[in-house]
């Protein structure tokens, strides 16, 4: 499946849910929010192969 992270698009092997996706990409759950088909979702959200998935970083520096 196609995932957008920090504005970049990457291809990821299909995973059952958002939690697995974050683990697979070694992403901290406090540091990112996940948007699927333009909606904010929780980690247990079950992913379908045509879902449009965006990972948004919430941490800012400075």
């Amino acid at each position, binding site marked *: 499946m196609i995932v957008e992270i920090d504005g970049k698009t990457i291809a990821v092997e299909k995973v059952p849910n958002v939690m697995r996706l974050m683990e697979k990409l070694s992403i901290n759950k*406090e540091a990112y929010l996940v948007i699927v088909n333009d909606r904010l979702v929780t980690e247990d959200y079950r992913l379908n192969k045509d879902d449009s998935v965006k990972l948004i970083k919430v941490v800012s520096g400075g």
Partner: protein
Amino acid sequence: MKCRVCGGNAVINLKAYNNALCARDFISFLENRVLKTIQRYRLISDEDRPLVAVSGGKDSLSLWYILNRLGYTSEGIYIDLGIEGYSSLSLDKVKSMADMLQRKVYIFHLMETLGKGIDSLSRIIKRSTCSACGMIKRYIMNRVCMDRGYNVIITGHNLDDEASALLGNILYWKDEYLWKKGLELKETEGHLSKKVKPLFLCSEREMAAYAILKEIDYVRDECPFSVDAKSLVYKDILNRIEESSPGTKLQFLKGYLKVSRTIKAQRKKEDIDYCPICGYPASGGICSFCRIMERFGIEGGIKFDEYKPVGLST
């Protein structure tokens, strides 16, 4: 996951609170926390004339929005540091929020004042960009309040900003700063306006979720100078701890508030000197800002532009 309040679909899982909420219930949960923080710690009162420091980022724009929603009518101040490709974009976001709220925003342009952006200025005064930037921002925020009759400056520092700064101060035992942090900085009549942080107990993740759910248009890009900011390393470490022990960041700050209150009360008030030119607190003579103005041969007051949304009369 289901919303713990209404049973609808949850959009966010808040492990620190052992809670999961839908969009509507999360929005009121967060707004309520901001309100409770303001009331419990008496950050803003009805007689105050507050001004919000807005950067164009998620925290300060959401805060400005929330305050006006909660009835704390407030205008804004934006400090344009002249950072190419970043400052003007940030200002656009600030202006759209001003339009939406129908509130005025003061704008200070570093470039128009000194003919230099923060990058060249920091090299001239031999400071790191972020240290020069911090100095200018603190000074201007205070100065606009003094010049324009506001008595409280409100900033969008969130739980993660504060926890990472605290961690940094502890790691290096910066005793001179360590106990001065907190939800508010007291005012000094005629010299310094009060400074408050209503988002002190709201995490960065919660603030981003709020901004997304409310469709607040904020700058997603980072300031180009933030890449090697130490605070990012501290935030990352704290988030790893948070992931394995949810609620740690909140406890860290709440514990600090408790302990620092006792320590602050025990400590003697230090004598503070003030800048003979502008009255800003300065140790020994002219303050850093007035020294820069002297160096650039600039005399007279500081100019603030005002952006007034269309339709706003006052």
